């Protein structure tokens, strides 16, 4: 368990460093950086390389935005196994739904209760 926290910290931190380098050295906007990271997650999932990372680093791999691409692919694939190619489209949000629905719900609640800053 201690090892899990350690590797979550290291791997999660390193993914953030990659993002920082893309912004500082690659001169990309945060929007571009995050989009590229999500696509990278999806591509890694395509080669079955992301899941071992989740086994190894736990939240260090599931909390960074790259895991969004991974779980989109995972959802699409699990549905595709059941229903064929159509499942690719219908299964997409099977695993990822909680992130987006939480963002929508809490975003709306936030808008009701908080005042804009500055």
């Amino acid at each position: 368990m201690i090892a899990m926290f350690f590797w979550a910290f290291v791997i999660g931190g390193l993914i953030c460093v990659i993002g920082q380098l893309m912004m500082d050295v690659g001169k990309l906007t945060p929007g571009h950086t995050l989009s590229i990271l999500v696509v990278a997650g999806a591509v890694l999932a395509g080669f079955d390389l992301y899941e071992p990372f989740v086994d190894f680093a736990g939240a260090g791999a599931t909390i960074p935005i790259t895991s969004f691409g991974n779980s989109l692919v995972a959802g699409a694939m699990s549905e595709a196994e059941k229903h064929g190619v159509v499942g690719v489209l219908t299964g997409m949000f099977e695993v990822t739904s909680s992130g987006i629905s939480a963002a929508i719900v809490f975003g709306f609640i936030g808008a009701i209760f908080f005042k804009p800053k500055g």
Partner: protein
Amino acid sequence: MKPENYKKLASKYEPKKPVFKNCIRAFWTGGLICIIGQAVSYFFIFFFNFTEQTVGNPTVAFMIFLSMLLTGFGVYDRLGQFAGAGSAVPVTGFGNAVISAAIEHRSEGFVQGVGGNMFKLAGSVILFGVFSAFIVALIKSVF
């Protein structure tokens, strides 16, 4: 600020961008957010009926809830200035992008303002995530 003024200001500061220092900051804040995520997921495993396989969803939802509180009290934006990618790359950064856009445009009303602008910043992440996942999964399921 006018765009030309901004450009001038930006180029003045750009050359001495402390890349190394930024990376260290991104590393430890990003890592710390992941440790919090790990602690949250162990919490759900211990006290609720979630396995390592299923714990991802409640963990992400809880992290976005935290991000709502921190965004609402203006803490997350200050953190972002310090941590850069360290606070933007974790899923809390995604939550922050959605929630801060929602709060900011509230004065334009709930439909036009909040509804219309919520995904202004985070939309591209969803678009490219979904589209690339579609292509990847399509290739994978055909071959």
